[in-house]
């Protein structure tokens, strides 16, 4: 379901497998969760290779004075250091870490599986964490930074956030944070003004941070979706059109629809009536396809009530192309979400044959409750659907 999360997971797996260029293109079709499982398994497997050697070296490093162990890390290089550190008692490893030059620590982190070093990560003093984070930023190694966020304390993250004046960096790191709950929490650690500045980066075409911004908004919880989404919706129509264009290009509607549904009423009205949605004839069918494939009718249909007349026509035109199976799914959402009003309004704009098809299905859903059935028939009549009711064989008063 999640295009952007799938892509960032793919990059993480490619890093673990040291894949170059477009090697193993079939991985691109695997769902995010499967890629994550494969990455965890491959990473674990690689870490357990030659484990006895690393244990023996770790025992040696633990026995050496701290300065000598730090020197040993420098001498054996980042890959071997990461393996040795993974086998050392965390407290000892933390004592050594503060003596290792920051650039080398950053390189060691690239090879370290943070899940195997969670105690060590907690024990490293915050100034060292900040220094390593700044070094990774200098190297633009946002992927490694993202992998470590889940394992840092709030205090350490606050210290890194304070030391990072550029919100663009935070957005780039956020793309690679494993746990979406953690992402939500980290965003809340940012002061509102900085959250605002991050969203305003959508205006900056030269930095092309739209994917990072979208990923952030897609993965935070409802309240933050609303806050961040409203901030984006405040921007002028050109910026919003760029966002919609990107969503359309990358087929991200399954993730975008919950964001639109979370917006305040005014922001929703502005977004759903964007001229760009009407001008591109491919957009509305894409939206409805995503709503159908990802069971999002219950949040998509209410948006129809906010549409202006031309957009409602566009929605109805795309709706008239739905298959019988899709109509069944729409009808279920209408029944559960009490969405008869927007449904009837859309129906009256559809060709008569499609009206009959919809009404037949809707009636079959409503007929379990005679009072509801009467209400639906009355509503259909009020909306000028008497002829369709007649053709569907439904008697009216």
């Amino acid at each position, binding site marked *: 379901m999640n295009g952007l999360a799938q892509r960032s997971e793919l990059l993480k797996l490619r890093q*673990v*497998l*040291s*894949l170059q260029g477009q*090697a*193993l293109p*079939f*991985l691109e*079709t*695997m*769902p995010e*969760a*499967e*890629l994550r*499982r*494969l990455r965890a*398994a*491959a990473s*674990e*497997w*690689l870490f*357990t*290779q*030659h484990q*006895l*050697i690393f244990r*023996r*070296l770790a025992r*040696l490093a633990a026995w050496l004075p701290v300065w000598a162990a730090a020197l*040993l890390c420098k*001498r*054996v*290089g980042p*890959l*071997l250091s990461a*393996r040795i550190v993974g086998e050392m008692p965390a407290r000892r490893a933390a004592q050594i870490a503060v003596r290792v030059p920051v650039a080398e620590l950053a390189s060691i982190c690239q090879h370290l599986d943070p899940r195997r070093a969670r105690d060590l990560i907690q024990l490293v003093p915050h100034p060292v964490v900040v220094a390593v984070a700044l070094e990774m930023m200098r190297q633009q190694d946002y992927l490694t930074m993202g992998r470590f966020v889940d394992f840092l304390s709030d205090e350490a993250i606050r210290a890194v956030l304070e030391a990072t004046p550029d919100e663009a960096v935070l957005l780039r790191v956020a793309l690679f944070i494993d746990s979406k709950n953690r992402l939500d929490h980290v965003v809340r650690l940012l002061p509102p003004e900085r959250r605002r500045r991050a969203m305003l980066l959508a205006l900056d075409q030269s930095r092309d941070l739209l994917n990072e911004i979208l990923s952030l908004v897609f993965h935070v919880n409802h309240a933050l979706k609303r806050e961040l989404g409203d901030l984006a919706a405040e921007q002028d129509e050109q910026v919003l059109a760029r966002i919609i264009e990107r969503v359309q290009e990358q087929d991200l509607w399954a993730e975008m629809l919950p964001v639109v549904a979370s917006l305040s009423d005014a922001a929703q009205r502005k977004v759903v009536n964007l001229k760009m949605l009407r001008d591109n004839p491919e957009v509305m069918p894409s939206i409805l396809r995503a709503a159908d494939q990802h069971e999002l009718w219950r949040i998509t249909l209410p948006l129809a009530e906010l549409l202006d007349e031309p957009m409602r026509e566009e929605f109805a035109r795309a709706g008239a192309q739905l298959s019988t199976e899709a109509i069944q799914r729409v009808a279920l959402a209408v029944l559960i979400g009490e969405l008869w009003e927007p449904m009837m309004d859309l129906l009256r704009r559809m060709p008569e044959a499609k009206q009959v098809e919809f009404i037949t299905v809707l009636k079959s859903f409503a007929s379990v409750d005679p009072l509801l059935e009467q209400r639906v028939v009355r509503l259909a009549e009020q909306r000028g659907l008497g002829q369709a009711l007649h053709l569907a064989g439904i008697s009216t008063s």
Partner: protein
Amino acid sequence: MMSQEVEQVAEKLRRPAHALAGLRALTPEQCRQLDQALDQVCAQHRHAISDSLRRAFPRVLRRWLLGELERELT
């Protein structure tokens, strides 16, 4: 039903085959390519580690530190 290739990858990664059920979507040839990629990255790491050890310690010291274990890396 898991293909032989999927089971082979799962066995290599020391995971039950059902834990990597996503691999079922891959063709046998794709599974083999994945299997090879795992072998390659493992070999790369082994070489890198072996080189690091050679650079860091003279041969006698390596033998003293690792004994027979050093053979794993050759």
